[in-house]
């Protein structure tokens, strides 16, 4: 039973076709584009409200030049939230548990903010490497430390998303298999496990949404520093 725990994260194939491609396209089908009429249906209105309020909140600390990132950040947020929450349904595959996918999101976007910062105002960007008011003997060490923290950001972005989702899915599988196997012999223990499972599921739904939000928020923060 222990060997099977990570089987749920294997990239599924069906007759040789990688299904991750189809799992990645699933969010596109769930978001209808607005109709040309003056009043849209409930789903489109909900979608518009959500994206509008999210972008307003995320882009408010960023100056006008950075607002060209609005479409990218909105798409990223909606995509990640949908992928994460769809992965909580039974038997579905969550592409965001694959480190490769999350790094593919994190590295190019982070690198874009850094390169933009260095191109537009290199002194300002380099100045971020030294916090204000540090005593002079500490300066060399602090610059090294700040550079390391800058370089580790994409790694942290990708691994954070992967680890949170993978851990959540693993916990759900462990607790549910424990509850199931205990169901007939020790019913009280099984009911405790079921209670834990309910709480865990609620947590997982929250984590799914929060992790997407954190990803985009941090990215907007890096953008704010550099734009």
């Amino acid at each position: 039973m222990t060997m099977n725990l990570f089987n749920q994260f294997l990239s599924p194939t069906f007759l040789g076709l990688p299904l991750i491609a189809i799992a990645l396209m699933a969010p596109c089908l769930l978001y209808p584009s607005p109709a040309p009429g003056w009043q849209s249906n409930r789903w489109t209105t909900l979608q518009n409200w959500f994206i509008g309020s999210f972008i307003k909140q995320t882009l408010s600390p960023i100056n006008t030049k950075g607002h060209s990132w609005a479409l990218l950040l909105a798409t990223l947020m909606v995509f990640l939230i949908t992928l994460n929450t769809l992965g909580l349904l039974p038997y579905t595959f969550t592409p965001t548990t694959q480190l490769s996918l999350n790094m593919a999101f994190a590295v190019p976007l982070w690198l874009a903010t850094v390169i933009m910062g260095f191109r537009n105002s290199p002194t300002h960007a380099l100045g971020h490497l030294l916090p204000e008011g540090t005593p002079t003997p500490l300066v060399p060490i602090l610059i090294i430390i700040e550079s390391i923290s800058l370089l580790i950001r994409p790694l942290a972005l990708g691994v954070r998303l992967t680890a949170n989702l993978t851990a959540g899915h693993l916990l759900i599988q462990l607790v549910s298999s424990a509850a199931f196997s205990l169901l007939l012999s020790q019913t009280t223990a099984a009911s405790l496990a079921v209670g834990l499972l309910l709480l865990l599921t609620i947590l997982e739904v929250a984590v799914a949404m929060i992790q997407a939000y954190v990803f985009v928020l941090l990215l907007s923060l890096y953008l704010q520093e550099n734009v």
Partner: protein
Amino acid sequence: MADRPVPVVEKRLMDVKLGELGTWMGGRDFTPNGLLSSVRRGYERYYNKYINVKKGGIGGLAMLLAGYITLSYVWEYNHIKHDRWRKYH
């Protein structure tokens, strides 16, 4: 009631008689463009019936998700069949 005679190929699938099925399949457009347009037509039929309505409920989305779950189950069956507790039931 006497319907106007319609060529077999243009009938909707539910109106095609069993014997005419072969002719119907032979006359359909299986080029990539044709397949794409049939997918798009199907999507718009579903969308306009269940989602693009004034008081759409959770049913439209729920049916889509239920279909997604069953499709995922079918795809993952080859992995999941090893999780059985008994080999022979």
